């Protein structure tokens, strides 16, 4: 009597839903095609090329030639290159940390400012991107070098007697990287802080939490998605950026990005450069996998 009717209903619904899904899938497929072609042309093909080149040998004129070999990879397993990777990771880590510490209050102030100012403030963060990053790096050099703006200023004030060596060391590279990467941290942080409901902060206050307790127990946990996304967006490009260490670090600091650039442009060893690129790529994928794992775990926990 009744039960069959009841049983049928969900079944029908399920059928309808799958039908609907098929229709939606077609629609999706059409919008995805251009993106797909784009990705193949501009991303996948070059990747395959690099991957292929990494198995060739260097020819005597700086081109590529036979025989096919794995030597490019085995060459990389050398303490020298491990050290390069390690220094790159450490520097990228510090860059991320500095960006986070600087970017969080930044993003917080923007997200909590009156609506009419918010877009202007965001724009101010983004505007520097409209000039070439190379030019912006040179601007830093003008500021930091021995007879640069900062040193001249401090000397004139009589605060220092000898010009400070602000350029061509690791902290200069760090300054350059942090400056360049900061917006990538601020934007995702801004997005997650802006989503944070004011009533939750009030509830925390209402329950007796002092301002820092509210920050620690409510604001920070609820903005971790932004922190993680921002960190990923800063950390990974920091590994590969080569012109900042080049320009601001002098030739002292060799990072993985510089190493790759050197193989292609200076040493003209394309196969080894390609192999190094692939290794950097794998490293990057590992970091992304860790990121996905962390965010998934968080979501998973929320469902328990």
């Amino acid at each position: 009597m009744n039960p069959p009717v009841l049983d049928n209903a969900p079944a029908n619904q399920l059928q309808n839903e799958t039908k609907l899904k098929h229709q939606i899938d077609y629609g999706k497929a059409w919008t995805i095609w251009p993106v797909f072609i784009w990705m193949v042309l501009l991303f996948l093909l070059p990747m395959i090329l690099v991957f292929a080149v990494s198995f060739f040998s260097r020819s005597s004129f700086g081109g590529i030639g036979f025989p096919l070999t794995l030597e490019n990879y085995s060459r990389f397993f050398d303490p020298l290159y491990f050290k390069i990777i390690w220094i790159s990771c450490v520097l990228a880590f510090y860059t991320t940390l500095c960006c986070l510490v600087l970017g969080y209050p930044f993003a917080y102030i923007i997200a909590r400012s009156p609506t009419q100012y918010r877009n202007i403030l965001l724009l101010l963060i983004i505007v520097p991107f409209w000039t070439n990053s190379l030019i912006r790096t040179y601007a830093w050099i003008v500021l930091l070098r021995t007879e640069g703006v900062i040193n001249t200023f401090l000397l004139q004030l009589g605060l220092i007697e000898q010009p400070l060596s602000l350029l061509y060391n690791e902290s200069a590279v760090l300054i350059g990287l942090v400056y360049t990467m900061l917006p990538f941290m601020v934007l995702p942080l801004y997005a997650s802080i802006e989503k944070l409901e004011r009533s939750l902060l009030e509830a925390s206050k209402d329950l007796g939490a002092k301002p820092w307790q509210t920050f620690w127990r409510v604001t920070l946990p609820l903005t971790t998605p932004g922190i993680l996304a921002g960190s990923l967006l800063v950390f990974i490009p920091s590994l590969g950026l080569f012109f900042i260490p080049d320009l601001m670090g002098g030739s002292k600091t060799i990072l993985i990005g510089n190493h790759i650039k050197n193989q292609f442009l200076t040493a003209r060893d394309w196969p080894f450069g390609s192999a190094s690129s692939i290794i950097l790529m794998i490293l990057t994928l590992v970091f992304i996998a860790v990121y996905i794992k962390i965010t998934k775990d968080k979501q998973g926990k929320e469902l328990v």
Partner: protein
Amino acid sequence: MSGLMVKLQHLVKQFGTQTVVQDLSLDIEKGEFLTLLGPSGCGKTTTLRMIAGFEQPTSGEIMLDGQYVHNLAAYQRDVNTVFQSYALFPHLTAYDNVAFGLRVKKVPKQEIEKRVKDALRLVQLEDYARRKPDQLSGGQRQRIAIARALVNNPKVLLLDEPLGALDQKLRKQMQVELKHLQKQLGITFVFVTHDQEEALTMSDRIGVMNQGFLEQVGTPAEIYERPSTKFVAGFIGETNLLHGTVRTRDHQHLLVECEGVQVKAPSANVAENESVTIAIRPEKSVLSLEPSHNEQLVQLNGRLTERIYCGGSTRTIVTLHSGQTFVALEKTDQLLPAAVGDELFVQWQPNHGVVVTR
């Protein structure tokens, strides 16, 4: 036990040029269940937020338990709030939400565990302790919000339409439970609602607000039976309002002329020729097909225009000869044998009318 818990003195709150709360003064006793009742946007939430410390009054003072609190931040006031939107922490379980207030106050672990469990038991959600807010129904969330506030054992609990999201049945049940809890714990409740029935059934006293003004404060019976303003008369329950001018007055009665008809009303502090309004509850009036010869009754005639079935009772709408509609309440099983369009008489005892001047 008795004594003042909350004292609001001439509170004013302005947002820009808009005055949202106007010269509000109110004393709330310890252990009292006071309800702020009023239509949407009349300033109830704003008043609660000033007591909680989320808004600074533009002028006026707030005293909590004998202490001026204008320089205490929200987290320093011994007051907890059940928010209109619950504001449960989405990243914490129900248990951790309830424990939040105790943890930030560094209460010993074992005591936290005991008190949180008690609070969850109180709202009958012990089995849901490990769920996150988005895995709870609206009613369950509301109860967690109540437990989260109550567990701190505040001096004053502010509740901003805490039952707003519940269906009729659960709402009724929670009303009883909340009232019971309040009696049992002896905490002062300031309860906000725009549901007049809820206010009447739960409160020790009701403050009726309108456009930022506190129009009247009194027990539910006082508010219902002796409204002091037109707004209160019209907002609490259904009321017929007859507007007129005082013609004569003696120590017992007024004679008020309403649209050419003389209506007798109980004596009030008004002058001759003053404009007044007489409020008559639907259930206080009687319908009749024949005019009454009792000189003591007030009697108006009109035509039956509509009958609305409401279960045990029926609302009968009569259009008076002045053109005004008048609502009367009839028992559904004792309806007057009259059809729409029939001429009939509305009658009531003069002292069942309430005279208001504002």
